[in-house]
């Protein structure tokens, strides 16, 4: 059965057809609202770096045609008969996952993102065996458990990236206890994840140092994002001076990079948390880890309960992403620019105004 006939409801979006990663218009279909489903008109969708990895099959598990997008916000148009939490007209969002087993220990602990049977928002298999398609599309249908409420005071366009970038940085700040006022946390990499990490950490009362390879990001980091200081990681003197000063570091860099200097920046008992995922292993120097009782950990997005908590926290502190809104036609150019980190700091597609189904 073709993508257009699989389900009863017509949908339109942009998809990549192969690992060239080039996206183009794509007609497909979505299921009817089941009794627990929420249907919404997509207004905006953030472009996550994962979308770029996936359209090019860089992680080896992409299925084509692939409609990316897991930072999706919009307005509810229909709710199933058993939906409790949402009604037509509500402003909602969907992030990286749209399903899980709902019965394992992880799911019971509100950690659906660690469920072995989690269903990703795109390029995955839904409970009914059909492929999931993401938010570069006009409508979304999702189980209410995986839908987030967007508070009224958050502008939808710059709230969209919170659904992945936001939870990915918020969750480890909380879980690893790097959220105590007066602590000093480093943020490595000032991109989509990094800039949101800075804002969250500052809102938690933490002193923040941005660590970056690009000296020209310093002014923005300090004046605009509120970072307390800035370290150029290739500058030996600056790095030396900062040795042993940080309680924790959130490392958002997904390229290969050395861990040794970052471990050196940590105080004793400090924590280096990786939220970017380099493809190949990194070198772990063991001596400094032992001598300072330090640790390197990983963290990936967050569960639904915590994602809602994060959005509410962002609303309370007026935290949104710094974005560049683009029309859908600009998508391939945006992907090329994203590959060169040429964006401050997230592209967001204006789906509502620019994605029109071709007849």
């Amino acid at each position, binding site marked *: 059965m073709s993508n257009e006939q699989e389900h009863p409801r017509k949908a339109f979006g942009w998809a990549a057809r192969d690992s060239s990663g080039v996206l183009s218009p794509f007609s497909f279909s979505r299921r009817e609202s089941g009794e627990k489903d929420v249907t919404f008109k997509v207004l905006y969708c953030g472009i996550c770096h994962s979308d770029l990895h996936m359209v090019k099959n860089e992680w080896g598990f992409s299925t084509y045609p692939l409609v990316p997008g897991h930072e999706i916000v919009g307005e509810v148009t229909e709710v199933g008969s058993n939906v409790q939490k949402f009604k037509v007209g509500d402003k909602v969002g969907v992030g990286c996952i749209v399903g899980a087993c709902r019965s394992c220990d*992880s799911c019971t602990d509100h*950690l659906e993102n*660690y469920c072995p049977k989690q269903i990703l928002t795109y390029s995955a298999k839904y409970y009914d065996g059909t492929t999931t398609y993401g938010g570069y599309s006009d409508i979304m249908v999702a189980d209410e458990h995986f839908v987030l409420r967007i508070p009224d005071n958050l502008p939808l366009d710059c709230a969209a990236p919170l659904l992945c970038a936001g939870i990915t940085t918020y969750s480890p700040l909380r*879980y690893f206890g790097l959220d105590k006022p007066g602590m000093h946390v480093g943020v490595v990499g000032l991109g989509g994840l990094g800039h949101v990490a800075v804002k969250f950490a500052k809102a938690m009362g933490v002193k923040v140092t941005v660590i970056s390879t690009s000296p020209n990001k310093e002014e923005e980091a300090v004046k605009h994002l509120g970072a307390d200081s800035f370290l150029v990681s290739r500058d030996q003197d600056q790095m030396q001076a900062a040795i042993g000063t940080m309680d924790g570091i959130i490392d958002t860099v997904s390229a290969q990079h050395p*861990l*040794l200097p970052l471990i050196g920046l940590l105080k*004793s*008992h400090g*924590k280096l948390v*990786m*939220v*970017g*995922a*380099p*493809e190949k*292993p*990194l*070198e*772990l*120097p*063991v*001596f*400094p*880890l*032992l*001598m*300072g*009782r*330090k*640790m*390197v*950990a*990983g*963290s*990936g997005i967050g569960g639904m309960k915590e994602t809602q908590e994060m959005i509410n926290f962002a609303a309370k502190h007026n935290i949104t992403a710094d974005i560049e809104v683009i029309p859908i036609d600009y998508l391939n150019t945006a992907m090329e620019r994203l590959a060169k980190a040429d964006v401050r700091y997230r592209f967001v597609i204006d789906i509502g105004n620019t994605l029109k189904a071709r007849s």
Partner: protein
Amino acid sequence: MAKSPKEEHPQKVFGWAARDSSGSLSPFHFSRRENADGDVTIKVLYCGVCHSDLHFVKNEWGITNYPIVPGHEMVGVVTKTGKSVTKFKEGDRVGVGVIVGSCNACETCQQDLENYCPKVIFTYNSHNHDKTKTYGGYSDMIVVDHCFVLRFPDNLPPDSGAPLLCAGITVYSPMKYYGMTEPGKHLGVAGLGGLGHIAVKIGKAFGLKVTVISTSPAKEDEAIKRLGADSFVVSTDPAQVKAAMGTMDYIIDTVAAVHALAPLIGLLKLNGKLVTVGLPNKPLELPIFPLVLGRKLVGGSDIGGIKETQEMLDFCAKHNITSEIELIKMDYINTAMERLAKSDVRYRFVIDVGNSLSQ
């Protein structure tokens, strides 16, 4: 001109030292300070042979300052106490471990974590406050600041209890710090040597299920029948490793050689913790994806503070935990070192200093 080791201090001491990176040990006359007001003088009865001693005599870490008298797992008897010492009296049985001094003023020292003090003084290959070298327990007596002397429980045999002063605290401390003490949880112990075999015993005493992870199938019988481990995984057997994937809450990695972390990380459950206490002389490869997908961590730990070392000794006394040892005479030390390099010992050599160190 600097004074010779023999003339540096007023008290004559005899021990065995290595003079160069051949690591070969031989008789050595040196001296120790007079017993100051805060000091305790100890006649050494037994001293464990730690793998670190071997690393140091051969300068494998590049930091050895020859001549070196190793030995940081000492049990002995008090022969003299300074005026301000109230905790000990002549005739008391005591222990000395890896550290004999620290700054006593920094935050780390205030938190009873002298082992992480930036000015920590190690029992050997370090410098006293008066800048003279420290010499370890392969010697007939030692003078130590009373704050760094441990009370050795009466019911622990002094010979098989000696290795607790390094091996014991090295595995006990991270088990407490990283929360590896919840009865019923599953602990993996990688490497069954001096550290590993004590980790098994302490793990069982905490009520944990313990699996030994080793490259040597020949160790399985002992691990289970003699040490009380619940199961055994041969880490070089892919089928065994696969069957054990995602089953362990924690792993203590005692392996000192360079080895693969990826299979160990795979053995951990979600939120699992791998703590490395062995010191390979090169960095290890750390795969990041599994850390991110499973919110796992790799941490280091290095011995423990004095308060915790005393707590560990008391814990071991309560649970009758001692090391499995091979008691040797002083003049066997070079053969013992050769055998240790080949892991040919079950599981710690202990030098009968009191009965065999003669001039």
